[in-house]
């Protein structure tokens, strides 16, 4: 991104000039905004991104981070302190890209000023000796000088060159010729600057999303619903400037969850259809609207998007105490553990005396594996079976410590039995201490609700970046001079030359075409 003079200075290994503080700072700044620094920072950015793709990250998979930490107790904590499990939010990653952006701005702003001036300035006059330029040609025309100049000027203008007519009078030490100077391809630099500035806007958009956006996850059973407030979410994260009290007041009910799996031999068990039939209200009391949410087809409410991100089974249980009174009657969300939806969950019955806790494993299509025991062989509910192990004792619900609904703390409980149940089966607990009935199952869907006010800007900036990039890579800045002098034997001698700032493959064609055009109307002869 540096100018040509910077590069020359660097190429010759310019020593630090013996300047004062201001001069030294200016020199530092010029080094910092140079192309070489940008290059080094780009390499650093690429390198700094790698660990986040190799190590599990808190942002995407916090559970695997904990697993990794417990599996690597020696280096894990050290890496954790250095931010290796949240690379893209770590200070060292941020410092690389912030430095890169500062270097970028420090380079782009002066170049914008420079480019602005260049766009206002007329194309530079013809050099004295055109035959020294990389691409040149000489032709003769029988027309006079005025006619040739006019023809060259209008030809170039019609092809959207910027044209300047001029002369180099012999009185001023010139060669007495008259010429047309033309320049084209300013949009190359325009595109380049637009591209870099657009990247700054992408960064701003990301920052807006980070500060004002929020994201929540919620699991909803069929028939159940939730409303968009913090307490209803299983997990919620928002930017620093989000007020959790002012979330859009919509609510959603999951009416039915439709799911279908591949039954053919190829990719058996792969998902084929996930579809949530939902009813939502934009505000309390608003007209309910029925719709479906699918993967790739989120629901948009009040600027927030509701995505379907997962699903599973919620087996339904009825627990009765020895007297036959119902102490528990609900479906329980079980979390899938593998591709065939072997799912685990916990039933907590504090109202039983003493308190009853059940660890459950739900197999939608159960089969008995001689080594692994009961496994699920298909994600669809072809042969649903639930394995339960019952515990009695203190579940720790009164301890005041928040508990996961998916874990049973059995440290102060006693195991009382183990049983496999099919839908409709009932299990009488040992010592006639009550019954557990597995009545069937529902499905649940998990939704992610996301609000990102920066995404529109991000998209616009990305589109602008691509447009700028294409201009800066496809357009070629080039100059052409047509110099015309009267020939001694009558007619005119025309020298044409082209110069490209960047390598321009079609410059010889440009020169050849204008040569052909200027000779086409007269008897032509090549010099």
């Amino acid at each position, binding site marked *: *991104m*540096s100018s040509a003079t910077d*590069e*020359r200075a*660097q*190429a010759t290994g310019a020593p630090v000039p013996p300047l004062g503080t201001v001069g030294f700072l200016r020199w530092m700044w010029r080094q910092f905004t140079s*192309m*070489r620094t940008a*290059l080094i920072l*780009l390499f650093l*950015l*690429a390198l700094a*991104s*790698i660990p986040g*793709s*190799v190590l599990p*990250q808190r*942002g*995407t*998979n916090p559970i695997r981070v904990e697993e990794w930490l417990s599996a690597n107790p020696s280096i894990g904590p050290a890496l954790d302190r250095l931010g290796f499990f949240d690379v*893209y939010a770590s200070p060292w990653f941020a410092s690389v890209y912030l430095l890169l952006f500062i270097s970028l701005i420090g380079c782009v702003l002066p170049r914008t000023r420079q480019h602005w001036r260049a766009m206002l300035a007329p194309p530079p006059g013809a050099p004295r000796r055109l035959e*020294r330029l*990389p691409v*040149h*040609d000489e032709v003769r025309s029988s027309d006079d000088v005025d006619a040739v100049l006019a023809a060259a000027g209008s030809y170039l203008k019609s092809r959207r060159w910027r044209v300047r007519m001029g002369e180099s009078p012999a009185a001023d030490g010139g060669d007495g010729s008259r010429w047309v100077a033309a320049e084209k391809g300013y949009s190359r630099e325009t595109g380049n600057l637009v591209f870099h500035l657009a990247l700054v806007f992408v960064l701003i958009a*990301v920052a807006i999303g980070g500060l004002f956006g929020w*994201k929540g996850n919620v699991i909803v059973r069929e028939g159940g619903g939730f409303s968009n407030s913090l307490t209803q979410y299983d997990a919620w994260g928002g930017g620093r400037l989000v007020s959790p009290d002012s979330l859009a007041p919509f609510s959603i009910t999951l009416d039915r969850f439709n799911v279908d799996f*591949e039954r*053919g*031999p*190829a*990719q058996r068990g*792969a*998902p*084929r259809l*996930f579809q949530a039939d939902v009813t939502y209200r934009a505000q309390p009391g608003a007209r309910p609207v029925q719709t479906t949410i*699918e*993967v*790739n*087809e*989120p629901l948009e409410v009040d600027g927030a998007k509701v*995505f379907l*991100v997962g699903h599973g089974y919620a087996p339904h249980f009825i627990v009765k105490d020895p007297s036959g009174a119902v102490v528990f009657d609900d479906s329980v969300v079980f979390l899938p553990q593998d591709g065939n939806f072997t799912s685990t969950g916990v039933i907590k019955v504090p109202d039983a005396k003493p308190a009853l806790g059940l660890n459950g494993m739900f197999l939608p299509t159960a089969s008995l594996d001689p080594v692994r025991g009961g496994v699920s062989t298909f994600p669809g509910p072809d042969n649903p079976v639930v394995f339960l192990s019952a515990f009695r004792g203190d579940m720790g619900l009164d301890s005041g410590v928040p508990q996961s609904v998916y874990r049973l703390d059995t440290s102060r409980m006693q195991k009382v039995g183990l049983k496999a149940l099919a839908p409709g089966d009932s299990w009488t607990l040992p010592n006639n201490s009550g019954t557990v009935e597995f009545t069937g199952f529902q499905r649940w869907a998990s939704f*992610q*609700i*996301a609000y*990102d006010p920066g*995404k529109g800007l*991000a998209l616009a900036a*990305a*589109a602008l970046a*691509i447009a700028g*990039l*294409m201009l800066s*890579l496809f357009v070629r800045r080039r100059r052409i001079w047509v110099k015309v002098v009267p020939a001694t034997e009558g007619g005119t001698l025309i020298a044409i030359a082209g110069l490209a700032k960047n*390598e321009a*493959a079609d410059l*010889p064609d440009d*020169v*050849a075409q204008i040569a052909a055009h200027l000779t086409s109307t007269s008897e032509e002869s090549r010099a």
Partner: protein
Amino acid sequence: MTSVELAQFSNAAVYATMLSLSLAMVCFAVAFALGRRRPAATAAGVEQVTAAEGTTAVLTRTTTVAASEADPGRRWANVGMSLTWLSFAMLLIGVVLRGIWAGRVPWGNMYEFSITAALGILGVFLVLSIGRDLRWLGLFVVIPALLTLGLAVTVLYTEAAQLVPALKSYWLLIHVSAAIICSGAFTLAAATAGLSLLRSRAERRAAGAEVTGWLNRVPSADRLRTMTNRIIAFTFPLWTFAVVAGAIWAENAWGRYWGWDPKETWAFITWVVFAAYLHARSTAGWRGDRASWIVIAGWLAFMINYFGVNIFVNSLHSYAGM
């Protein structure tokens, strides 16, 4: 045609492509072994001859030297080019039939990505070869295409099946087709960059004299670098588009346009490395071999993203179907 026949035809077309590509590879290799002199004429029939006073050059019109057609190496290379066209046509049939068999775009698993990527490599090469003499590059295009197909039919083969719901989107068409063209173009650029490194070493050893050996048939290191630069200049905006299209799709499918999923991370790394290449091209001291090394690094990042992330890493993009 029944579904089984379609499948058989598709697979047969892929195997036939591999056979014809192997023959093309032999032809291109023989061409290198036989021929000693690269003919002087360039594609446009116009050669820029560098004159003594530095960068100045004059336009001279040269005609294609008829005698060079008698060069036996050239004839082998011509057969190689014809076989490459034939391979492209057969592979195109194979990919299309695969799509008809599956009843969708043929980009549902890694086998399908790979045969389409091989098609992309051949396609980009053949399009570029129109109006240019790229016979010297043939060998270095046929080899990666053949390796990709070999991996596809042996390791990655999957029966056609429906798409998983996450892939059911028209963005699949946009995002994946752009990425596949990029895979072909990046591979081509890595080939020319690699050749430019070999050639520039040979030029240094020759110390001003003519380069001998098979590298004699390859354009000068400078021309190879120019070619690499043009390919990247075309591919980098397309890759940017592929990444942005992926981000739009991700926003629609997962609720965020960027989430540092390993696939996204390596796409970003690839993007940054090629951005570094473009900067290197205008940084003193970086234009030559160093820039070529950056292209190879960028291509490696792309390959890590394709093979490494699809197969070994737990990613949202794990659609290998294996």
